[in-house]
């Protein structure tokens, strides 16, 4: 088992999974926040566009988004996300397309988590901000969002855990990460099937369990006292 782990570069695959998770989560947070602002804004067109994005993306299977990212952006539109002359062109390109797909998909969930956070804020806060003469951007950045983030830590943590496990889907476009290593190990060592499954399961527990603990602790620490 140990030599199989080494032969198929399992730890390198784990590092790639972490990389996908980190960058995917970061971009999902940025994009999701923008979407949430659109949905909260007083502009009808933005509200509509934000709602349309969330509805469409949230209801599309992640596998389709991953394959579409590769098939549309790279295969058909021929847009390279990495330098074609580089010796790691396909590896980098696949990784970036994977991050893009994961971020695009989870942004919809981040947006909804933030809106849930906004709902924890009493309506009087927004009204008070407006009666003080604050503009929408001012009340958003100084009153609404800071409290929304603090109220949304738990649902954001859930989205992060889901994102971590969903990074396995990018194997569909050949990005080397844990599920890719698992597939190769099973192809050549079917006799170790259960050990390999066990290893992969443990790896994800080891990554996501601390996430749950940290968000639980953070949600308590930063909860808005009312």
């Amino acid at each position, binding site marked *: 088992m140990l030599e199989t782990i080494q032969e198929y570069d399992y730890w390198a695959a784990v590092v790639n999974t972490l990389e996908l998770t980190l960058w995917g989560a970061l971009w999902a947070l940025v994009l999701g926040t923008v979407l949430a602002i659109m949905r909260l804004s007083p502009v009808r067109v933005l509200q509509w566009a934000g709602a349309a994005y969330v509805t469409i993306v949230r209801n599309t299977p992640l596998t389709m988004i991953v*394959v579409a990212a*590769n*098939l549309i952006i*790279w*295969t*058909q539109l*021929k847009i390279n996300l990495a330098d074609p002359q580089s*010796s790691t*062109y*396909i*590896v980098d390109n*696949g990784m970036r397309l994977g991050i893009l797909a994961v971020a695009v998909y989870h942004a919809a969930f981040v947006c909804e988590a933030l809106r849930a956070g906004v709902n924890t804020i009493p309506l009087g806060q927004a009204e008070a901000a407006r009666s003080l003469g604050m503009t929408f951007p001012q009340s958003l950045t100084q009153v609404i969002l800071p409290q929304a983030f603090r109220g949304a830590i738990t649902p954001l943590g859930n989205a992060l855990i889901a994102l971590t496990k969903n990074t396995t889907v990018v*194997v*569909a*476009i*050949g990005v080397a990460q844990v599920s*890719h290593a698992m*597939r*190769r190990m*099973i*192809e*050549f060592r*079917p006799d170790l099937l259960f050990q390999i499954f066990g290893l992969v399961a443990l790896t994800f527990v080891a990554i996501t369990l601390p996430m749950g603990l940290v968000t639980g602790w953070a949600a308590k620490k930063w909860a808005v006292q009312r």
Partner: protein
Amino acid sequence: MRKTTYRIAAAVAAAALALTACGGDSGSSAGGDSKKIKIGTKFDQPGLGLKEGDNMTGFDVDVAKAVAKKLGYEENQIEWVESPSPQRETMLDAGTVDLIFATYSITDKRKEKVQFGGPYLVAGQDLLVRADDTEITGPDALTGKVLCSVSGSTPAEKIAKEYPGVQLQEYDTYSLCVEALAAGQVQALTTDDAILAGYAAQEKWAGQFKLVGKPFSEELYGVGVKKGSDLCEKVNTALTELFDDGSMDKIVADNLGPANYTPNPATNPAKPGGHCG
């Protein structure tokens, strides 16, 4: 107004239920034929084993039909069962299928679990390139080029290990590789030559691709048979007859001919026998 809407919705739902119920009961139509043979094949491999509606086509399917005929089964006595690669040994062992014709390479590891009739074709790992490509003449010419294969598959691993200078793009299916090859984002596609020929022979891609024609591995395609079954030697006799009367050449030409595929002459025609028991 509300009520009518609900009624319409209920009627539509009921109709949908009734329709699905009708579609699901094809299994009971066996009727009088007591003698049936269950043959496992791929359902999703163009040119080799493909199911379109109720119609089965492909090289493996035609070989299976011809062998079944020699064994005394007409076409309507064949029950086709899908046999995906990872499940083949288990399906034979459990008796889900009697014979498997599914690009099934004879290997020592597999012979520990099942026996093989055949081989009926010696395939080999080859490259598929665009028809106007003159640069790629073999795996050595691939350095710096983008090659496509299925993730975690044996051909993909072989390339990654033996030709580290190649950029390997992997997908879940060869169909996506073919799309990328047609669009020009990958320069070659690799797996067994017979499988490549199956994709190149599809009407959609007629004339767009060619096989490089220098196989760099040997895959003996055999007929999977359960251990201990006496069918194995009978299959070998049937296959030998098919080679002798020229039917095999015709089956190859019918299915893989449009891709200008001829089995590697150095290793073909295959000599059935020696892998039973």
